[in-house]
């Protein structure tokens, strides 16, 4: 069946935002609460058009702020609805208070994020400040390299979120503008194939089931709060296994196999490894191809899952390498980049620890080119001081 589907696979020219909107349409959410103006992305504009055209039966709730959007999402999810939304930048910042609550109340809300800088200074362009700000909110975070991944991983991500072993909200993150506004060929699955893959959402305790009344979101004092948080820890720990299961099933359906929790590009024999999230992984592949022609043994580790952080798998993959360049498109001011800190902690589990370098790049939409990524390997080869944070493309 999968092969047949591949034979007649057609590709449509779509921006990342449109690809995410198609995934939303095919996921058939009952409710989509949205704040309809900037910093909203064309994801919602496109999806709203689908609803207006009668292509999907969804109640869009236009709200007065992103804080209200996430609040309505939590309410609708507790009621028993499949709920999707989208946001970006300051919008995510305003949602954040309720994002924590969505996770603690175990609402499997799906949210497409066009990852962009946070003010200040005011800026609307790509970096990962917003997503990284939300990394402790208890959401699954999936980073996508391109529009195809944004589509595929929105579909898989929603089923992952709604799986009984998980029941956590999920952010499917694509780089703002770089992916949300760039058109590329995307292979969409048939509507009914997606519908069958994700199935219907069956809430565990739907609030509208008045025959089985529940109280949701009650006060939890020191005698219960800790236990409720511990349940979220377990749910996160289950994500990796369920992800792998679902990806195998999705591969049979689509012919696209997201194997493991990260993509290993020319990694097998690599002495030097770049670790990257999102769209810049594409640029890094070009850089690595060129470096390989110069006989430099460089590879790429591109993470799909950032939350939960696949520490064990990453430690295994990096064990015994000479040096690793960790590229962060966000700052954690006063410390190392967020990705660097995670990997550094993950490597405590292994003995043959590579030297780690931290590069900050692309803040506020600053362009990043293959030549810049190629030159990183010089630092790694000459064993430059690894004890400083480096900035790519900064005037200094």
């Amino acid at each position: 069946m999968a092969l047949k589907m591949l034979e007649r696979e057609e590709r449509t020219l779509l921006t990342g935002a449109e690809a995410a909107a198609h995934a939303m349409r095919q996921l058939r959410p009952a409710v989509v609460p949205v704040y309809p103006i900037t910093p909203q992305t064309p994801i919602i504009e496109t999806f709203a058009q689908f609803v207006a055209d009668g292509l999907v039966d969804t109640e869009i709730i236009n709200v007065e702020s992103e804080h209200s959007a996430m609040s309505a999402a939590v309410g609708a999810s507790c009621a028993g609805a499949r709920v999707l939304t989208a946001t970006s930048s300051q919008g995510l910042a305003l949602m954040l208070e309720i994002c924590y609550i969505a996770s603690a109340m175990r609402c499997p809300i799906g949210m497409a994020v066009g990852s962009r800088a946070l003010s200040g200074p005011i800026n609307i362009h790509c970096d990962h400040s917003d997503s990284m700000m939300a990394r402790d909110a208890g959401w699954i975070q999936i980073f996508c390299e391109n529009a195809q991944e944004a589509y595929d991983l929105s579909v898989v991500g929603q089923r992952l979120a709604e799986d009984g072993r998980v029941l956590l909200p999920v952010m499917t993150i694509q780089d703002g503008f770089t992916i949300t506004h760039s058109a590329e060929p995307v292979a969409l699955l048939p509507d009914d194939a997606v519908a069958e893959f994700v199935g219907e959402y069956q809430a565990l305790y739907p609030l509208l089931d008045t025959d089985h009344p529940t109280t949701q979101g009650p006060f939890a004092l020191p005698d219960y709060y800790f236990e409720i948080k511990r349940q979220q820890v377990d749910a996160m720990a289950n994500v990796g296994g369920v992800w792998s299961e679902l990806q195998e099933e999705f591969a049979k359906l689509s012919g696209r196999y997201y194997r493991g929790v990260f993509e290993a590009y020319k990694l097998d024999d690599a002495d030097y490894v770049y670790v990257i999230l999102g769209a810049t992984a594409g640029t890094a592949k070009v850089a690595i191809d060129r470096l390989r022609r110069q006989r430099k043994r460089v590879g790429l580790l591109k993470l799909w899952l950032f939350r939960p952080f696949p520490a064990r798998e990453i430690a295994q993959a990096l064990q015994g390498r000479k040096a690793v360049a960790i590229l962060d498109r966000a700052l954690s001011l006063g410390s190392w980049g967020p990705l660097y800190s995670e990997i550094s902690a993950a490597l405590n589990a292994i003995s043959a620890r590579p030297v780690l370098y931290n590069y900050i790049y692309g803040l506020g939409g600053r362009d990043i080119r293959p030549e810049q990524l190629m030159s990183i390997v010089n630092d790694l080869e000459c064993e430059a001081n690894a004890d400083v944070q480096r900035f790519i493309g900064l005037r200094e």
Partner: protein
Amino acid sequence: MLKRYQELPIGGVVVGGATPQLVKTGSWRSGQKPVYDQQRCIHCLLCWVHCPEATILIERGQMRGFDYEHCKGCGLCAEHCPTGAIQMLKETGGS
């Protein structure tokens, strides 16, 4: 005994209805309590609709008083009573 995290419904959900009955919310009443004048009551039950606890006592469709073990003294009933039958009285020395 308090339950271990594995034994609790996920997400802090409290399963089952009327669970506020298990907590004596009247023990931290606001410092005022409702009293009503039977003569002025028309049994419209608006107080029952607006009370955030199951505190308004009803018998055969008629308003019969308050369950002070659960009344927290918010005053919503008095606010919504169309005939002014409910007055909020100052309490001294807690509940």
